[in-house]
């Protein structure tokens, strides 16, 4: 068996068994229980929720990410073992969605971690979620979903973006000098 045939076989099996991380980062998580349970039943496709990042293959970013959550998400993503994939759920991960002007919600997810598939909608219907799983399976089986390689290759860029948000050492807006020290 040649190298490419072997990797094709591996990719086939990877696509048939994708485990997602049981982590609800935002309100899109409310549509996950219907997808998991009897009406849509994603276990048909070999997708089951796993308890810890070590065991998971897919990271679902279900909706908006506050700064605090983004930090946890980055840790989580770093803890997952390759190959791993990220699904961005809903408009909030694409451009901030309805929270585009909020002071605590990031606007664009793929600035911080690589995203393999975006699902549009607020919130995406279970059908859309299932469809994205099928699409991800196709991409994995064809060997196209390579977000994790992109992350390793451009780690400095992602890290700089992450640090821009987490590692603030001075106020973002100039006016903040007026903040009373007593407060």
């Amino acid at each position: 068996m040649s190298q490419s045939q072997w990797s094709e076989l591996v990719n086939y099996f990877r696509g048939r068994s994708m485990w997602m991380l049981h982590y609800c980062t935002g309100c899109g998580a409310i549509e996950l229980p219907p997808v998991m349970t009897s009406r849509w039943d994603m276990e048909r496709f070999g997708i089951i929720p796993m308890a810890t990042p070590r065991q998971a293959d897919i990271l679902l970013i279900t909706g908006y990410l506050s700064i605090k959550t983004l930090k946890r998400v980055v840790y989580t993503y770093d803890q997952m073992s390759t190959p791993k994939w990220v699904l961005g759920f809903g408009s909030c991960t694409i451009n901030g969605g309805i929270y585009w002007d909020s002071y605590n919600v990031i606007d664009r997810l793929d600035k911080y971690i690589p995203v393999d598939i975006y699902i549009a909608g607020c919130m995406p219907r279970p059908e859309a979620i299932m469809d994205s799983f099928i699409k991800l399976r196709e991409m994995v089986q064809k060997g196209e979903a390579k977000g994790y390689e992109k992350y390793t290759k451009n780690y400095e860029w992602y890290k700089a973006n992450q640090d821009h948000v987490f590692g603030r050492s001075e106020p973002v807006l100039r006016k903040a000098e007026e903040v009373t020290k007593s407060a």
Partner: protein
Amino acid sequence: MLKYVKTLNSMGLKARPLGDWEFEVLTPKERVAETLSYLKGSGFETFIHLMCVDWIDDGEFELVYNVESYGEAIQALVKTRIPREKPSMMTMMNLWGLCQVYEREIHEFFGIKFEGNPNLEQFFLENWMDLPPLRKDFDTKEFSEELFGFKEDESHGIKAPERIEYK
């Protein structure tokens, strides 16, 4: 309900009914503790919420304590105004322990210092150095654009990742 309004008025506070089951009391800052302990003593045992309004044009913060009496099904809103410069207020923790969390939240979002509250650390936000966000002079849009805005040229001197083209 009217009896409470009458008693509070006789105490020299401004009270008036707002609806079928709601009345408000306007008190000066010093008399909040007195008013609340009177209300607690007369059956208003549940603390519903504490919130703050930033009246920037008046230069004042308005604090609203909401307490409820389950026995008589009445809600009382105790309102007080404090100056916006170096705002501070005494804690009501000795009346309701629950106030600790609400005061911590208001300290975080408005910058009001509560004297006597042992824990006023950051709660909802992390590593926040700007103006307290719910103040009227904090511009959330500008903040968001500054911190999260996507600028194509912002590459930190590092080559930005190439887009993967999917067929």
